[in-house]
């Protein structure tokens, strides 16, 4: 991988001397609960990093706060485990400064769609080249079972003992409603092949790729996805050559919808549909304006800057 970043003395990894195995991306031992869907997502991400041979030190995982936000600790890349809801501004700052780095963002549903909702909307609009994963278990788990925006209506939690009163927020509809959003997909951690294919498509997208990953919490929200896990007929695959194609799961998920990811109106209809849970790429438009590209400025050396400052001071000279 060649990285160029203006004046930065970016090191170019020796030509394929190193080959990174999946194990080369393993960080601390994951401390998620047994049966947590995050384990499967971590495995798929490590597989992706190895498949793409991403240099560990050129890769940064940024997260917020929540169970899923422990993600960076369990990888051997650079990681930024920040504050609740604010992973996207940090990732934006990193990418604006260091376009040579591969930046991934991992958020939970409370993180992304509640406390960080403003950043989520605006990050989609900035369309900075980031791979953004929403690990959506439909519950606040780290704080022990409170209703999140994506918790189903009627679901009993510690803050909604009579069941959640509002219909849940649909992250796909929100994302597809944001001007200049360029990549929106949905997948599920219990279908590793689909998850991996979707992550790979997201990684290859130039712009902000937003992937909602349906993720089971075995402790607090098992019921949220139970029906979908047990009954594949509830799931419909979006298939298209420009989307993800996962032949090996087509035997399980017989319901398939041909969907061209360039069709935004169709993507919005699919996002709003209640008949099935749709997995696949809903929308993709690599031609959307990218904030990190349009804001890039020619770098200056210290000497050049000094000369320019002198000229600038002339404007203010008495």
């Amino acid at each position: 991988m060649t990285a160029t970043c203006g004046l930065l003395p970016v090191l170019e990894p020796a030509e394929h001397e190193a080959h990174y195995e999946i194990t080369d991306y393993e960080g601390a031992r994951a401390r998620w609960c047994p049966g947590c869907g995050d384990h499967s997502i971590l495995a798929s991400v490590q597989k992706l990093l190895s498949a793409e041979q991403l240099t560990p030190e050129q890769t940064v995982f940024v997260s917020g706060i929540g169970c899923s936000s422990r993600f960076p600790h369990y990888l051997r890349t650079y990681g930024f485990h920040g504050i609740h809801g604010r992973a996207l501004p940090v990732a934006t700052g990193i990418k604006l400064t260091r376009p040579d780095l591969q930046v991934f963002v991992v958020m939970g549903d409370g993180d992304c769609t509640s406390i960080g909702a403003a950043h989520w909307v605006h990050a989609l609009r900035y369309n900075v080249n980031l791979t953004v994963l929403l690990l959506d278990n439909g519950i606040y788990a780290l704080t022990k079972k409170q209703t999140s925006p994506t918790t189903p209506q009627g679901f009993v939690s510690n803050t909604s003992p009579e069941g959640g009163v509002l219909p849940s927020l649909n992250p796909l509809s929100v994302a597809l409603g944001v001007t200049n959003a360029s990549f929106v997909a949905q997948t599920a951690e219990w279908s590793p092949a689909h998850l991996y294919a979707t992550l790979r498509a997201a990684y290859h997208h130039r712009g902000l790729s937003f992937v909602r990953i349906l993720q089971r919490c075995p402790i607090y929200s098992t019921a949220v996805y139970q029906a979908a896990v047990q009954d594949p007929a509830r799931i419909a695959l979006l298939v298209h050559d420009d989307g993800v194609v996962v032949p090996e799961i087509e035997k399980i998920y017989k319901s398939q919808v041909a969907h061209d990811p360039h069709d935004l109106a169709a993507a919005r209809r699919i996002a709003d549909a209640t008949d099935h849970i749709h997995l696949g790429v809903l929308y993709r438009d690599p031609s959307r304006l990218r904030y990190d590209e349009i804001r890039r400025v020619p770098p200056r050396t210290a000497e050049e800057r000094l000369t320019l400052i002198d000229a600038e001071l002339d404007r203010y000279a008495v």
Partner: protein
Amino acid sequence: MTATSSPVAPVATRLAEHTIEIVSDSGEGAQKCGQIFGAVSAKMGNGVWTVEIIPAEIQPPPRIPEGASGYRIRLGAGTVTNWGDATNLALAFNEQVLVARHRLGALAPDAVLLIEDKWATHEDADIRTAWAEAMAELATRPYRIIPVPMETECLTLVDNARKGKNMFALGILACIYGRDMERIKEQIAHAFRKKSEAVYEQNVALLELGRNWAEEHIDFRIEVTPAPMTEPLVVMNGNEALGLGAIAAGMELCAMYPITPATSVSHYLSEVFERFGGIVHQAEDEIAAAGVAIGSSYAGKVAFTVTSGPGLALKTEFLGLAIMTEIPLVLIDVQRGGPSTGLPTKVEQSDLLAALYASPGDAPHVVVAPATIEECFHIMVTARRIAEAFRTVVMVLSDANLATGVTPFPRPKGDVRWQADPIDLAPVPEGQKAYQWDAETGLSRRIVPGQPGGAYTVTGLSHDEGSKVAYSSGVHQRSSAMRSRKLAVLQSLLAPPTVYGDAEGDLLLIGWGSTKGAIEEAVDRARAEGIRVSSVHLRFLSPLEPGLKAIFSKFARVCTVEINYSDEPGDPYITEENRRIGQLAWVLRATTLVDIDCWTRVPGEPLRPGSILDAIRERTPRGGAA
């Protein structure tokens, strides 16, 4: 009194200083007139300190006292360090805005007041009545009032006098103060650089009309002779100085969200920053602005964010993260009146405690305050270096007085060493940890993504040297000590502050931020009266500059002077035990155990040296030079 026709130019009265203000309804251009007058005066070599007079609304209804919009210029033969006490000459576009200034006590008792006279004979009887009432109110003081037919004169040249009356006014001031017309024309050309040639020519014609009218009708001239210039100077406001300072420090990313009075830093940078290889990122909110800056710093730079009090409040969680993860960051807080939306366009120094203790938990960081517009420039270089060397947050506390004030200062001689080194992506030495704290100093070398052999995850959770999440009490105790120690190390590198005046006496005033000029002028005037008073001005608020206790011990009384609120002794319910005191006084009492007094005011305007002088007199034995 009225203006008299004087075919022979009157002899100019030579003065060491004069304070001029021009006030109008919002949108009539008094500010532009004042800005040009100030800039030209500075370029002619005069000492200048300017203050904006700003209404709370963009376009308040016309002819109301609260709508007064304008500019005040204190003009001096030598250096001018503050806005002074009162205006000596005011030029007003209507009597209501003038009365507003009178009621605020902004006008000297013998001030000359030039006023648009069309309202006296206005067709609307209510306006004529308002004029008469205002004139009666002004007549209670020995002002010299000179009616000026501004609109009548302007209408001889233009159809709409609302546009351009300010240039006529500028012409009058140019005549009275003998300003260089060519320099004024250059400034007009600059001010209207985005407009057509015709606009420029019309403005110049009105300027000359005003000057000619004054030549004929104004019977006095004022000469404030500039002192000869001994070194090259530049003239700018404090927010421009902060922006230019950030450039000189080699910073490349300013993340911000619009907030008065901080925003003009980003206005300036938005215009020029890209030429210097930098960008202004206008974030979706104050929190995101902090986050983007932290992300940029984490990636290897030192980025900065610019805000005012309410924005500081919103950023505090992120500041804690930057401190905990030891990511360098510079935050500028251009303070305004608070709490809440407070006085958004007015000066106050009431964010000090919030800046020092902003973040929950123990979050040691650096807080500095420039005292002058010149220091606004240089402090950015200092702030960037400290942030980088100490891997921490540096807050720069400016205020509305510095932000919008304009004054000349020695032209900075840039130095490449002021700028950050390029990002070093050399491999991390074998075995080096993410926080390789030096056991003595707590300092460690930062590692940035891209460096082979690093691959750490930084975390806001309590962590050990290796950035591994650690729950044991010993680790948290030690890492807290390491972060805290850095402040002591920084203090060990600072010199004790200089005492202005004698090193001992009856009273020592302590100030911080923009009040330096006013405090030192008050000290000079008091010392001239024989009062044994000195002052100290602090730039470092965290850590405090060393040696304060020793300095304080040489004075019978020590008193802070601040633009923030403190309870008045003697007010209902206020006792020595419950009195809430000035913010710096609070900090100094806690750190020195000296019984420090405070004199603080929140008038929504800069402190006047005369008011500080009164406070000095109240606290010292009279005729003290024993």
